[in-house]
């Protein structure tokens, strides 16, 4: 499956949906900080991978796909659910990259300047996530 850049996907998103993601991201970052302050960095660290944004994102994807198909006279309900399921599967592949991000940060942060450590770990997240996604796509074609 070919990866494409499609700016039209952004046009479907309304301003209040961007605002919803901004607020959800801001709130979970504050909560993660409060948890770390209250119970220490050991427990706080777990919440750096809490799926706080996930319900809002999945609901928006489901809604956009449903509307897009209904405008063409197709069964939007089914396609909306399928799109959200595929998005969640992609997030599972991205989570494998997130494990790598956390492990690499754990190793790099004490040894290197912060921008280098965080930048390097983000590149590693992208590479590991992309590799996991590619392997899954190839296996799906084979079996």
């Amino acid at each position, binding site marked *: *499956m070919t990866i494409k850049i499609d700016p039209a996907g952004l046009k479907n998103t309304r301003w209040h949906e961007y605002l919803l993601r901004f607020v959800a991201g801001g709130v*979970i*970052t504050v909560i993660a900080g409060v948890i770390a302050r209250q119970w220490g960095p050991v427990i706080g660290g*777990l919440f750096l991978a809490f799926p706080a944004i996930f319900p809002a994102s999945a609901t928006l994807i489901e809604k956009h796909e449903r509307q897009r198909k209904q405008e063409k006279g197709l069964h939007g309900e089914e396609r909306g659910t399928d799109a959200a399921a595929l998005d969640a599967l*992609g*997030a599972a592949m991205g989570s494998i990259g997130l*494990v790598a991000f956390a492990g690499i940060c754990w190793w790099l942060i004490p040894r290197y300047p912060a921008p280098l450590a965080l930048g390097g770990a983000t590149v590693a997240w992208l590479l590991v996530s992309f590799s996991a996604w590619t392997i899954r796509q190839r296996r799906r074609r084979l079996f």
Partner: protein
Amino acid sequence: MSEALVRFIIGGLVVSAFAIIGGLFKPVSFAGLFGAAPSVALATLALAISKDGKDYAGTECRSMMAGAAGLCLYSLLVSQLLARFRLSALTATLCAIPLWFLTSFALWRLFLR
């Protein structure tokens, strides 16, 4: 500006940036990778390093590995709830949250405590 407000703005901006980048890509399964982007982690760790030091941030990262493994299982469960049981996205994502707590805390207790 209070620390909470700084956290809110930085967290909101980083999460929004990854959401916009993810929205640019097709197919949907590839765009989904960005649903597990290290957005909250980048915002939190950058602030933790500058305010609490590298050891504090490093400890957070160690625990985050368990949280990320929990997120992987959570996402797989959400995908299955949607594909097989045809639940709505909101119901599936909320019903699966106990699995994240269970696996994240169990992995942390077994391997990282």
